[in-house]
């Protein structure tokens, strides 16, 4: 599992922003970019979760079950057998009347935080964060950009743009690569 500080350190290292006394990007900004990159995994890759639910009605709030809105509910199981007749609508799971004390719900949830990420996806988040950081600098312009370009060996702004695009493309490729089969989601 990843630590946010470790991820930020990797982002800085890749961006060559390692002068502690004069960082180009504030740490809080890089943390925000990492958070955004984690959320950008959501449309393609998530984490599979299984939750035991006590039977106390016909309708259940999915956020209460999974802790966040799932990308997909894959199955409802009763005594290890696939149940039928359930459906998802909006934020609710509708199971009808069940004659058991508890049942299991399996679903795919979006990652919420870098601390949840397996190492393979940490790489993707580092790449996307670098892309966002360079993009931010390019959009903002000014002295910070000038200084960075000089520090990087007299780079041109369009070269930096190319690098930002390259990191983003890499992120998209990683994201697709780790979307397991048609079911999506990584088993944990």
């Amino acid at each position, binding site marked *: 599992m990843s630590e946010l500080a470790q991820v930020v350190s990797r982002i800085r290292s890749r961006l060559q922003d390692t002068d502690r006394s004069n960082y180009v990007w504030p740490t809080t*900004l890089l943390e*925000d970019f990492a958070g*955004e990159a984690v*959320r*950008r*995994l*959501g*449309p393609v890759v998530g984490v599979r979760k299984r939750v035991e639910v006590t039977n106390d009605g016909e309708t259940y709030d999915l*956020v209460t079950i999974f*802790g*966040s*809105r799932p*990308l*997909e509910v894959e199955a409802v199981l009763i005594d290890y057998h696939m149940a039928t007749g359930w459906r*998802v*609508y*909006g934020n609710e799971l509708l199971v009808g009347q069940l004659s058991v004390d508890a049942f299991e719900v399996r679903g795919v949830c*979006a990652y*919420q*935080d870098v601390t949840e990420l397996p190492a393979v996806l940490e790489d993707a988040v580092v790449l996307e964060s670098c892309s966002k950081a360079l993009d*931010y600098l390019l*959009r*903002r*312009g*000014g*002295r910070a950009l000038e200084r960075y370009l000089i520090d990087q060996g007299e780079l041109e702004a369009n070269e930096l743009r190319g690098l930002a695009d390259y990191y983003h493309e890499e992120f998209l490729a990683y994201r697709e690569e780790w979307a397991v089969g048609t079911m999506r989601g990584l088993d944990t």
Partner: protein
Amino acid sequence: MTTTREDIRDRVNMYLDDISTLFESAELDAWMNEGLRRLSPVLLAEKNDQVEVAAGADSVSLPDDCVYVLRAYADGELPSWREHGGALLFSDVVNEGAATTVTVEYLGGWDAMAADDASPCPLADWQADVLVFYTVARAFRRLATNRADYRRYATVMNNQVDLEDIERLAATWQADFEAARLEARTRRQLLYEGQRVAGSRPEGE
């Protein structure tokens, strides 16, 4: 974790940075709600409501924000139905003797976010950045279209900025919004779109 209006505003301010002082919170909030409305052409909200069919009636008006009915059901059996001109039309009288409450599940426009900062955004956490991108795009668009704001921007940034640069930024953020808007679609939304094209309905109708 649930994304709130305050979370989204904080992210917007992070991107606007020095120039965030040029915008009122109320203005940013209004753009967030506009972003929600702009989401509807590609991603609709799953909603439900109850409508009452009068005794002896064979039709009932649908909620104003209904775009497409997915299901209609009541405690008893309903005649088959179709949707036309903002109403649910039944093939027969629903109940000759008494009014009937019908639950309608439908796809509709997104409701504006609650007026307090702590209420959850109606989008999932992984979808909510779409509103950040839209709001930032609108902020730059305003700077690009108002000369006074443009001068204030140039002063705050303390550098020479062409109007074209700000227009380009607005367009870039807008493009980010468009891309994120498409990615925000869920698998169920795609299923609904398929049903709509094929003219079929979910099971049970």
